[in-house]
């Protein structure tokens, strides 16, 4: 066991980790930040996407020790301190972009990464970007729509929510 320290959602946090402890495990079990979800063990589903030093990462593909000293952003840090949802989160609620909510943290973190690099993505670009995020509930319709709406595009011509 070694001590690992990282800045999570702007706060410095520390905990013990084994060499084999994954970042996803460390966030959930050691730091108690259970918003980051684990939906597979082959780095396919994307439910655990977080940002490490500003880059979207599947937290199950990184060891906690590799994130020592890094700045990590998770779903818990996305809303304003008073709980107000950010524009992307709000678009997901407005357009019914989630059902069971399990893939949602990864979807939000992955979509935030897309919009940072591509402020007005096309439908095809959104779908391509979500290649590494699996949702089983929504058929993706309202997720794609919500992300396009969050980018300021008019989605009213897309079929109903």
């Amino acid at each position, binding site marked *: 066991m070694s001590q690992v320290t990282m800045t999570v959602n702007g706060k410095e946090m520390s905990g013990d980790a*084994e060499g*084999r402890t994954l970042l996803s495990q460390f966030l*959930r*079990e050691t730091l108690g930040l*259970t*918003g*980051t*979800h*684990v*939906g*597979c*063990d*082959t780095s*396919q*589903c994307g*439910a655990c996407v977080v940002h490490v030093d500003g880059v979207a990462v599947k937290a199950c593909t990184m060891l906690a020790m590799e994130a020592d000293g890094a700045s990590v952003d*998770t*779903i*818990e840090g*996305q*809303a304003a301190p008073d*709980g107000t*949802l950010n524009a992307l*989160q709000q678009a*997901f*609620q*407005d357009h*019914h972009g*989630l*059902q*069971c*909510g*399990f*893939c*949602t*943290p990864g979807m*939000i973190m992955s979509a935030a990464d897309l919009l940072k690099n591509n402020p007005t993505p096309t439908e*095809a670009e*959104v*779908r*391509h970007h*979500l*290649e590494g*995020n*699996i*949702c*089983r*509930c*929504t*058929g*993706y*319709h*309202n*997720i*794609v*729509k919500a992300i396009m709406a969050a980018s300021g595009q008019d989605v009213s011509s*897309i*079929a*109903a*929510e």
Partner: protein
Amino acid sequence: MPKDSGIGASPKRREDVRFLSGTGNYTDDIQVNGQAYVHFLRSDVAHAKINGINLDAASVMPGVIKIFTGADFEGVGGIPCGWQVTDRHGEPMQEPAHPVLAQGKVRYVGDQIAAVVAETLEQARDAAEAIEVDLEELPAVVDMKAALAEGATKVHDDLTSNLCYDWGFVEENKPAVDAAFEAAAHVTTLELRNNRLVANPMEPRVAIGDFNRATGESTLYTTSQNPHVIRLLMGAFVLGIPEHKLRVVAPDVGGGFGTKIFHYAEEAFCTFAAKALNRAVKWTSTRSEAFISDAHGRDHVTKIELALDAENNFTALRTDTYANMGAYLSTFAPSVPTWLHGTLMAGNYKTPLIYVNVKAVFTNTVPVDAYRGAGRPEATYQLERVIDKAARELGVDPIALRRQNFITEFPYATPVAVEYDTGDYNGTMDALEKMADLSGFEARRKESEARGKLRGFGVNCYIEACGIAPSNLVGQLGARAGLYESATVRVNATGGIVVMTGSHSHGQGHETSFPQVIAEMIGIDESMVEIEHGDTANTPMGMGTYGSRSIAVGGSAMVRATEKIIAKAKKIAAHLMEAAEADIELKDGAFSVAGTDKSVAWGDVTLAAYVPHNYPLEDIEPGLEETAFYDPANFTYPSGAYACEVEVDPDTGKVTIEAFNAADDFGNIINPMIVDGQVHGGIGQGVGQALLENAAYDENGQLLSASYMDYAMPRASDVPFYGVDHSSQTPCTHNPLGVKGCGEAGAIGSPPAVVNAVVDALRSGGHDIHHIDMPVSPSRVWQAMNG
């Protein structure tokens, strides 16, 4: 104008705020003080005799608390099956024992051999690697027809064969059906496979057992669609714990799709071990474990025959199906290929004579049970594929052939024992034709051809049966449970309401849609109503959420309880206003006396109920809380027409979905936004089944597609935006809301549309192809085209 509140409005989902901000409470998020962790050692062979298990080295590994094997469960009940099917000879199905941990033999890859409980999960896993298991491998039976062959290896030595049951439905119809085939002007025959699927809710299963020695109470936290059902099955049949000493909590659940209905061995294990060790025991499935331990879905092999007369009227239908049960009977497995499948074979059509034969077969594979649609997708797929083939053989338009044979008068009693109350199949087909722009299809086909692609259009209809009921009927059909639903409506002193429902929400948005109903009935703001579900400690006994039953059955229970509330509140209001009870009217959250300007607000009445100073104590009790159990008179029958347009790349065989349109009749709709979302998700899964997904076993019983590297889940780029329409609404006649249910429609209605479209595309390219089995993968399409 769309409403902005109440029934028919689409308020934003209130549950979203916690899910979007990472503050949901899923089972794996729960940490019980002092919890230990369990890792299951699972069989990596499909069929073997257990000659011995040596725990010596593993037991002394760091952190190990105890290692359990089948021997520890000899005095414990097995995992029960909740439905007994009677075969065509009047005999009960063969029902094997299903131990919590394997005893004597392992019967599928994934069967639990031992369970290591340790201080940490890593220690439990490490110790499991040190267990020495002496397995004597036996031949595995994987293919269903081979499993039924003379001399086949038996999955269960104490059964007479691998045949669970041979079911005929309706058996008495068989001679008349056979005669109709003799007399038919045309017979269309199709053999097909409904591919085996893995449900794959994104949240893997989790179970945490806890035990309080001081009170003797056990608690199970579990990822379940129906915590009361788990409490009853596990408490009464497996562990012998009475309900008042057993609490089952299913908090936020990350999708279910059927596979979280069932009572699983891991739940019983964690509850048992927590008591044995006097500390909490937690199990979190990995995705790899989920593939080999969650009940799979579908896996039917069918020959279907359709008889038509000289005018193209359907005269008879005959099917012969083999249904895979896997190695053990999962909770509702026997009901899926029978009562949830045979009863749907009439579809939307007035075929007068139908006979369905189903042979359910044990194999050395993961148990198979209900997956979104459960039996109804299998029925719809066969029927809508054979109709499409018949239209081609007869040279008639597939839509016209369907329309000609539609049931148009209701109620309609089918020859497969169900009575449709309402429907408008031409109405949904009209809506579909409009959405799908059929008239523009030829131009789109030409445009595709100009780019070297083949374009196809496929259509199909479906009938769903939701809210399976009534309980006395399903009891006669073999269900070992009732199928009612419950609700307690608790009105607080200041007028706010908490509804405790036996329904369970794992993505369906009940916390938003259920309050819409109650708020409309009383005329108060939706924000005054809160829904509680998922904890047996504070909800009345209810059967949970599956089979698209929540609004039709759970919603009806809630309406009945609210009606009782309103009736009592009117008595209180009458007393407060010194008026006759019969003159009291409730509107917009206020009680008034008809024909006067006297009025009291909802909150005044509720306060009087709990501060009964001015109150008719001699007539009624204080308080305002009512419970209702609702047992439906019949199923509900949503229906619809779906269309898919595909493009096939002849060079690679890749199929692209260019358009998907769905016209559904769900009766009355509470929240259109949520209903659309349910249809979208169902179509996503149906397209997944049609194009991508396949749980493939090799001949040795190894699951080849046991991770997301190998099992092709639909991704965002595999599907288009969908067109959804539910303007055609024929309300259900036998429930108070006139609702029908919408949860499974998309998954039922979409696979045949996709395959019909692919066949249409290939035929337009001159390929004489009548069928390709799902998943219609590039390799299968390419092989079909290149013979």
